[in-house]
């Protein structure tokens, strides 16, 4: 495997661009929705064979170990080429968590399966009555012999219908004094008897998230990550990765690609009012990149992410939404047409970034919750 970090930025960018442009299946470029597993499986395996499936993981675990600037180039080039979003929870969340909090057996068993596309993960966090107040969750896991027995339900579980595994926060000690205590972090095979799903259609008309029901679902005790009752600490550690992932510039970059293409197609660069707003957003995005590299550097140095990482998520998703809104405005009457619109120089789905960016300020802890966290733990304001 090559040492990508030893390459010049330009050479790495050229290789990434050539690869993504020529190899990503044309029929899925700039897809309006997230890719289903049957659509992206081949692409996932192709990336895996090339050694490019986990750009953010250390090399010893099968990742690319990219430096922050190379990682950003990787993301920029995937967005430029219109590479769709795959079921990526294993790559962005479970992998980094097991590397940090898991034991050797868990790492040996699960990490290669993620790299090989044999384990596709979804996240069992939110419940019908535990959204922003996640620590009030009620799904319960009771020890029984060599297993935990899980009962309850999880909701807003993205891509659960494609997942082979789910990571679950479940209550293991009802007597704990604080609601954050007595929660454990468990890994569960989706094929386990007792798991049922219902898909939920979103406002874009897509079935991307689900409700997952657990009815006496057994998972072996070796699938407990970290200590019993200490799952909240792991979830919080994981939230750092989640906020880093959601806070990366890749999703707003996707909208920016479309906005710039639309501006060219409609001759909007001659409109000074438009150019001023576009430039502001270009700077908002570029400056997000500067802040993002600061946090990726921290992770690479092995430092824990503090509560301040929340600001990345707030700014990234806020920028994403503002980009999606300018895209619609810049399209004029075309901006409300469902599906792809054929402009002079490009076919552009104008509405999809609008839909795709809406949940970004809700999931992973709403932007309002992130602001509460920043106010309390970073600015030390009283409650």
């Amino acid at each position: 495997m090559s040492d990508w970090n030893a390459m010049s930025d330009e050479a790495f960018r050229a290789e990434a661009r050539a690869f993504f442009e020529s190899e990503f299946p044309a029929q899925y470029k700039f897809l309006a929705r997230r890719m289903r597993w049957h659509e992206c499986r081949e692409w996932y395996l192709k990336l895996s064979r090339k050694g490019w499936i986990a750009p953010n993981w250390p090399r010893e675990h099968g990742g690319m170990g990219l430096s922050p600037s190379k990682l950003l180039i990787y993301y920029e080039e995937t967005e430029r080429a219109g590479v769709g979003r795959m079921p990526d929870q294993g790559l962005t969340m479970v992998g980094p968590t097991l590397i940090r909090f898991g034991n050797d057996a868990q790492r040996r068993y699960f990490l290669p399966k993620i790299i090989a596309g044999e384990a596709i993960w979804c996240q069992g966090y939110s419940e019908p009555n535990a959204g922003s107040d996640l620590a009030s969750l009620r799904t319960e896991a009771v020890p029984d012999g060599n297993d935990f027995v899980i009962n309850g339900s999880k909701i807003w579980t993205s891509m659960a219908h494609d997942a082979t595994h789910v990571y679950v926060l479940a209550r293991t000690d009802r007597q704990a004094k604080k609601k954050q205590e007595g929660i454990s972090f468990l890994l569960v095979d989706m094929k386990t008897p007792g798991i049922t799903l219902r898909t939920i259609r979103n406002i874009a008309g897509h079935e991307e998230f689900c409700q997952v029901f657990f009815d006496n679902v057994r998972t072996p005790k070796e699938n407990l990550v970290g200590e019993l009752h200490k799952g909240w600490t792991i979830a919080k550690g994981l939230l750092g990765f989640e906020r880093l992932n959601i806070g990366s510039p890749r999703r707003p970059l996707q909208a920016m690609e479309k906005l710039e293409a639309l501006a060219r197609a409609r001759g909007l660069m001659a409109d000074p009012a438009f150019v001023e707003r576009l430039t502001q957003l270009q700077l908002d995005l570029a400056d997000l990149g500067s802040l993002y590299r600061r946090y990726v550097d921290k992770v690479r140095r092995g430092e824990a992410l503090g509560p301040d990482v929340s600001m990345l998520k707030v700014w990234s998703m806020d920028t994403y939404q503002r980009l999606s809104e300018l895209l619609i405005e810049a399209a004029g009457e075309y901006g409300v047409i469902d599906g792809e619109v054929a402009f002079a120089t490009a076919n552009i789905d104008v509405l999809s970034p609008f839909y795709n960016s809406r949940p970004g300020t809700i999931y992973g802890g709403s932007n309002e919750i992130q602001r509460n966290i920043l106010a309390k733990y970073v600015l030390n304001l009283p409650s």
Partner: protein
Amino acid sequence: MTTRNDTSHTALLAQSVGDFVQHGANLPRVRALLQTRAEFDRTQWQQLAEFGWLGVLVPESCGGLGLGLAEAAIVAEGLGRALTPEPYTAVAVLAARVLEYSAGTALRDELLTGLVAGERVPVVAWQEQADDFTGLQLATAATPFEGGFRVSGEKQFVIGAAGADGYIVTAQAAAGLQLLWVPRDAAGCSTRAVPLADGRSYGAITLRDVAVPGVHVLASGDAARGALDRALDHAAVVASAELVGVMKRTHEMSLDYMKTRVQFGKAIGSFQALQHRAVDLYIQQELADAVLHEAVVQLDADPDAVTRALAASRAKSRCAEAALAITRAAIQFHGAIGFTEDCDVGLYVKRAMTVAAWLGNGRAHRARYARLAAQPHQEAA
């Protein structure tokens, strides 16, 4: 710049700047500036020279430390925090860089050596039109005269003119752009002070047939243009560091106030409406800080002109807007007391405004960014 990566040196510098901010901030003096207009205090300036700060960027051959923008930014951020009115960036960055890049004359070495010691205070007079922060709209004319030039024209917006003993003037000659040294008391040169909101002033300089001998020609043609462009981008980045100092200190004041001011029986900092606003401004502060530090690293690596200009414009745009937003909000967070002369907030608001406007405000830098980013050179994020 051989010692640029000497981290112990950087740490020492940061410490001495920190001490200065703690003990040297003289806010009563800053408050009095609106009456006294005494923005340049020679004793204070001499102190900056003794600390070695005026020579941070200047090559060791001229008595300086030969460090980079990373270190100059540390000094500027501290002076921004302390609201020091002396023209550190105008002299020790903009003029120092123009002189450094105009190598080859005895005068250049003399001015740089004097600048480091605090004995000579040169500032650059390049601007004639608002928003023209790279000095392209140049009406000042230089006609050949006895091996040198005669120069006529008018310069505006010259920060630091109040304490300057001479100007590095841009002028157009048949042979191209000229960088000329004009002593403040040269015959035909007059300086008028235009008072600013924060108690400092712009110099408005009139040049009427000023005779400039050949030995006062610092650079000509492409060399002059190159030196000026580079120096202006470097100064815009260091001015951004001043703004970061101003905004950080101001936001600290706002947060302290929100923790102690009680209304409705609670500290006002417990109210979510204020918390979220404070957080959003904090995010702007951290974006500004991140962009500034990347710009410093980029410029210290001396990239091509377009990369350099894009980085400088990103820094100045973000830092200017963030400083303005944070200082304005500080008035609101402090309530009526924030609008009084007695409250320090106003001093910070006004300094943020004058530094934001100098060397191109946010809008002007966004316009340049748009122009340059549209070129094929573009490098995203």
